[in-house]
């Protein structure tokens, strides 16, 4: 298929950015979106134009590095996939595709389509863990966990930290990301001892870093490549109020 791409180009954080149009031909419908981007970059290098910078690594939908905003949607038009798992069969010959970076105050732009998501690491550092040192822990089977609880915890733990939730949210809120980690740990007996401290510390860090507030529009859940549920936000709120009231 032949396509027209409108790609956000920006030299660095300080430079002014703009959309630049590129034509690309003979793309197989079986190639992935990022393979199409590879072909574009090879074409640009040949033409002596600097290739488009974008984040990507595992290309299996699990590392959370890829982060393109395609035709107004984080990770593009397919459901429940990251960009690296999006295939060109979701587009038609002759389409114009608009490609932008994540846009959020807490994710400053680095170059072209790459942004700095280290704010997510900072939130995890504030309390996204169980405080145990290596060694000196009990036998794994000494802590029985209800299967359903373990499954709910795993549902939340599936978050890949890509930031699509923030990119999708009109407030650039990180509530889905934070709630997924809080839920994963607070649902488990291992996480209970620090449950209150964790939720307060992580919410505070999120606010300090400039993420917006949650107004329950649900865009995050709709765009999450791992289908992390809004229920986690409800759980976070409950945990948070409980911590504040106790």
């Amino acid at each position, binding site marked *: 298929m032949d396509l027209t791409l409108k790609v956000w180009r920006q030299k660095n954080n300080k430079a002014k950015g703009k959309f630049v149009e590129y034509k690309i031909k003979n793309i197989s419908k079986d190639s992935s979106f990022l393979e199409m981007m590879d072909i574009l970059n090879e074409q640009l290098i040949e033409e002596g134009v600097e290739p488009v910078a974008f984040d990507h*690594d595992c290309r299996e939908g699990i*590392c959370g*590095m890829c982060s393109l905003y395609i035709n107004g949607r984080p990770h593009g038009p397919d459901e429940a996939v990251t960009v690296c*798992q999006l295939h060109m069969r979701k587009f038609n010959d002759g389409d114009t595709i608009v490609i932008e970076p994540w846009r959020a105050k807490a994710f400053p732009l680095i170059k072209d389509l790459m942004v700095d998501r*280290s704010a997510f690491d900072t939130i995890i550092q504030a309390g996204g863990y169980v405080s145990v040192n290596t060694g000196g822990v009990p036998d794994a089977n000494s802590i029985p966990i209800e299967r359903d609880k373990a499954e709910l915890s795993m549902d939340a733990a599936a978050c890949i930290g890509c930031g699509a939730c923030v990119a999708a949210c009109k407030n650039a809120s990180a509530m889905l990301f934070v709630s997924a980690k809080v839920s994963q740990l607070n649902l488990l007996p291992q996480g209970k001892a620090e449950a209150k401290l964790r939720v307060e510390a992580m919410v505070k860090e999120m606010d300090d870093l400039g993420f917006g507030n949650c107004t329950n529009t649900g865009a995050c859940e709709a765009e999450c490549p791992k289908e992390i549920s809004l229920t986690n936000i409800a759980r976070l709120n409950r945990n948070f109020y409980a911590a504040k009231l106790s």
Partner: protein
Amino acid sequence: MATLNSKIPDGPIAEKWTNYKAHQKLVNPANKRKLDIIVVGTGLAGASLAASLGELGFKVKVFCYQDSPRRAHSIAAQGGINAAKNYQNDGDTVYRLFYDTVKGGDYRAREANVYRLAEVSNNIIDQCVAQGVPFAREYGGLLANRSFGGALVSRTFYARGQTGQQLLLGAYSALSRQIKKGNVELFTRSEMQDLVLIDGKARGIITRNLITGKLERHFGHTVALATGGYGNVFFLSTNAMGSNGSAAWQAYKKGAFFANPAFVQIHPTCIPVHGDYQSKLTLMSESLRNDGRIWVPKNIEDAEKIRKGEIQPKDIAEEDRDYYLERRYPAFGNLVPRDVASRAAKERCDAGYGVGTGKAVFLDFEDAIKRLGRDAIEARYGNLFQMYEKINDTNPYETPMMIYPAIHYTMGGTWVDYELMSTIPGLFVLGEANFSDHGANRLGASALMQGLADGYFVAPYTIQNYLADEILVPRMSTDLPEFDEAEKAVQDRLNKLISINGKYSVDHFHKKLGHIMWDHVGMARTKEGLEEGIQMIRELKKEFWKELKVPGSLDELNNELEKAGRVADFLEIGELMAMDALNRNESCGGHFREEYKTEEGEALRDDKNYTYVSAWEYKGPDQEPVLHKEPLTFEAIKVQQRNYKK
């Protein structure tokens, strides 16, 4: 000259590690604060090591090229992690896990290291559960297990098809806690460019800040590399796009011997190659072989019709299907080790029975769905089936998956002794980056085990034993001439890469190298093929340094420049792999030489002449490296031909 002393402790195998720990040297808490440790890589081994050292009170600096430590490629491991817990009461023991791993590695691993690995495997599961890793559980609330290749027991712990992700996030959370406490300093988007030696000891690294392009100097009393494998030398592999062998290669050039480079794992269950534009291969977890049955048509005419799309797999009657693994290996069936399954698939496809493009076989869940119901299969493998459908546009619940072997893991790596220290004093190497535990073939669910064993439970001890003699060494200035010199060499190389200004992109060369490697140093190797491959790699290397084109500049974010540095190293790694494969006149594990096989086509080892680790020493650019041999002795295990038939 460096010599090979594996430093295996005395005593019976089951007591070696206990004895080591009982007699090793320790560092007191006040001194720990004065000792700096550099950890490169934040996968399972690097993250768990940095976290554990931080907890102990050392000053740690940790580096990764990704934007966050959570993105290291350990995250992509799907199926599970082995441990000898024997929770299933099916007869598992530490010895059995040790035995299976040595046998699976085709008797080319170091016994003492493997025993220690099996021994600490149980601690890993305890540790991860305490961290809040949501492993799969039974209704009674206890941990569930599944089976993996090369074992007769169920000892694999898992978190759906995302075990690597969950274990890495566990280690990442422990690391994050230490970063918050100030014990560990984190450097993301930062790639190691060279190792700095002072008086023969590893004392620091030069890194490139991938955003600004600036070169930076870092001092450490010791340096630990946990930088993964070099599978991307093949261009197409299941590795992440950025995975590379450069850190280990820089260490090699500074004097760290490189061991068994020829030992590469080709994973049997990957989504087949489908086009020239393809950038990577996607793995389908080995756990699928628990319930999926592998087959090709029994009649060559049927295979042809399937390839042409004239008939569908369901049109082929049961008796006209060849479940070739069940036929050839009745005892292990579809759960034979990876090297065996991969070669068997290649054999069928080469004989003309392949489906799809001709380079694929079926992995069929029809029986399992009939037996257990669709829901049960979905609960076990739902995310894998979804991933397959997204990529291939066919529904594996209704029509069998198509799979083919692909490069997945490198058993070879930097040579290390029992303490995981390389031939450079003070340089430790962990996880996939070292060579020590998997011999010539790694069993499934053992990579996660090894990464975490090295990082949580082995290196924190052995590094301390080394540092106990360094407590009087003050922090060194990074203005020392050794740092100047290393940085200048890095600068020169980067300048050279960017100023060649030739005709072709990095990918052009990388793809060419990949083809040479797959055809000549791949699943089936021959003397002639390897010799030819070496010549071709040398030619390609010359062309690379003449015709490479890297756009952009040095002092900015420049993806092409990053790739160029990695591919420059891959060109050299590939050559050493071929040389090692040429030297090893036997077939063992993932290393299969056509000249050395049994009448039935199985790998034929030559224990008399090749029961050794080949460790290569760098002698300078365009000089032949020197081969050193570490003889392997087996005391606890009787060496046999691997038999998965009965």
